[in-house]
């Protein structure tokens, strides 16, 4: 297709795009991005690509070492656990619990938190500062402790864990969105739009929001790594997703009895957890640096 833009036009990249341009100069970020994408695709395809059912037991192959071990077999690439279940299948199927459910929790928390945060950012005075002090207090208490209390009230189950994690994440979103809007609202371009007679809704969605997208995305990555860690921690304590679901934290807890003889049942699910969280944190951390760089430019 011929280039039909006749006039020379300087195109300013959008805030989000310019940050991605800054970020992708770092090779680690690119690796983290691809690693996360691959894990995400594996998660979506997990019902199709797992070699066996996650709960299928092989009585002839209990505690089989991984295939690179001398006694390993290629049909169980990562070996099997104490009930003869294929670890590779369980790790892939577990990504639904350990990455998919946190994603859903973060999505709900973000929806509610951003709405409240936007409302708090636009309003001012007593209502706003009171909310801010409350949030400071809630945020200083670790999310795991809050989640534990909620689980203690509701009892451990998948739905309650999701509820607890979502509730725990909401204050973080309110806090960051509120502060981001506060920072923007007194800038000249917002005042100009206000003088133009824009409605509050237009001001929020079209004027302020594009400029705080990067902050929101950063908060999303932080919330996601918190959610993954907390769900796995609750699973590990036996208060989260219940066995036999192949959640990574639950698998780690189950391996506790036999880790000293059969370390792969612990090392491999933990490694999956570690790589996922590391990739998310690398992205989030570099996002923060890039936002700083862009502001300084």
């Amino acid at each position, binding site marked *: 297709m011929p280039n039909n833009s006749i006039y020379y036009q300087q195109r300013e990249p959008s805030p989000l795009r310019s940050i991605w341009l800054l970020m992708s100069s770092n090779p680690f970020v690119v690796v983290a991005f691809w690693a996360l994408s691959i894990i995400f695709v594996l998660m979506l395809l997990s019902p199709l690509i797992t070699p066996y059912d996650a709960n299928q037991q092989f009585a002839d192959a209990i505690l089989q070492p991984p295939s690179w071990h001398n006694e390993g077999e290629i049909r169980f690439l990562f070996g099997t656990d104490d009930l003869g279940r294929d670890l590779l299948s369980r790790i892939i199927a577990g990504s639904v619990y350990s990455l998919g459910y946190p994603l859903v929790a973060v999505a709900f928390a973000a929806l509610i938190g951003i709405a409240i945060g936007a409302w708090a950012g636009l309003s001012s005075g007593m209502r706003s500062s009171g909310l801010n*002090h409350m949030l400071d*207090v809630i945020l*200083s*208490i*670790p*999310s*795991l*402790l809050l989640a*534990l*209390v909620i*689980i*203690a*009230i509701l009892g451990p189950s998948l739905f309650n864990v999701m509820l607890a994690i979502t509730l725990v994440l909401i204050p973080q979103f309110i806090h960051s969105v509120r502060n981001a809007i506060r920072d923007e609202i007194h800038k000249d371009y917002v005042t100009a739009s206000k003088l133009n007679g824009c409605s509050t809704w237009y001001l929020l969605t079209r004027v302020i929001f594009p400029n705080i997208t990067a902050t929101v995305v950063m908060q999303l990555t932080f919330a996601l*790594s918190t959610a993954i*860690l907390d769900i*796995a*921690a609750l699973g*590990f*304590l*036996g*208060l989260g997703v219940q066995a036999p679901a192949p959640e990574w*934290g639950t698998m*780690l807890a189950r*391996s*506790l009895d036999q*880790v*000293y003889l059969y*370390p792969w049942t*612990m*090392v491999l699910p*933990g490694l999956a*957890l*570690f790589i996922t*969280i*590391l990739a*998310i*944190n*690398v992205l989030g*951390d570099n996002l923060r640096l890039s936002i700083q760089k862009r502001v300084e430019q």
Partner: protein
Amino acid sequence: MRYTLQRLLLLLITLVLLSLFTFSLNYFFPGDVLTNMTGIRAIDANQYASVALERDINASFPQQYITYLGHILSGQWGQSLITQEDVFQTMTPLLGASLELIVLTMLLSMLLGAPLGIYAALTEGGSFDRIITGLGLSSYSIPVFWLAQMLILFFAVKLGIAPISGQINPLYDVPVTSGAVLIDIWLNDYPYPYAALLDALNHLWLPIIVLSIMPMTMLIRITRGAVLDVLRQNYIRAARARGLKGSTILTRHVLPNAMQQVVGQLGLLFSLLMSNIIIVEVIFNWPGIGSWLVKSIYERDYPILQAGVLVFATLILLVNVAVELFHAWRYPQVRKELYAE
């Protein structure tokens, strides 16, 4: 001064809200409210009636809450549903054991983290600096329960140089007074102090390393960033221009200013440490508040559960406010920013 009063007032309000929250937990938890509150079951009719009278359970909610607050403040926290032991008396040695871990971990991470961070900043771009910045993020991403298991597997099982769990070998029956083993051995004139001390230290070092890896690497990153930030300032250039020695600039100009940023982050580090300590105590079978809290959730022991939440949250809030006050007292520029708002 105004700031101190404002913070203390906010702390007071927060603590009242916290106690209000734990009070309302009694209603949220399944089962009888009074049993959840005191740990005394309705089967024990006499005691139940007397406790009901004592707690004003039939009065209005505000009246009930005030009575509850009075009980909390005077240390009458009810009894455990499972063991029937007094909650407050069980709690104190456990708090000692947790504090022992917390204090030693914070000490280790500060003593190692700050100097390493300064060193990394001074050799910016060097190999040590690059390793540190790389490791910083990974250590922040390691789930602490996995790290603990890996280190146990390596040090305790493969190398066999550390015990797997516990606070001290049961052969040494050190009487428990404060809960912190090291202090207990010293306090009680235990007959074999050195052997017991050695054994206690042998049990201590692995959990402390597991706990301190995350705060330490974060401290290194924060210190590094702060020092680099200060090094870019004009007054450092001015000091150089005056011909001061590098070491003088570092100790007199860079460090005091860099530490200001570091101190501001200590509260956050402490909160992170507290959420890790819950899990680490469970894994190492450490008789502390964290494992007590988790056990009470398994056993649905509500009086203990609310006591655990109360102690944990109070500790975190107190430390946060203490750090903030120290920060504002020590560094006037922070105060100035606060007033300017």
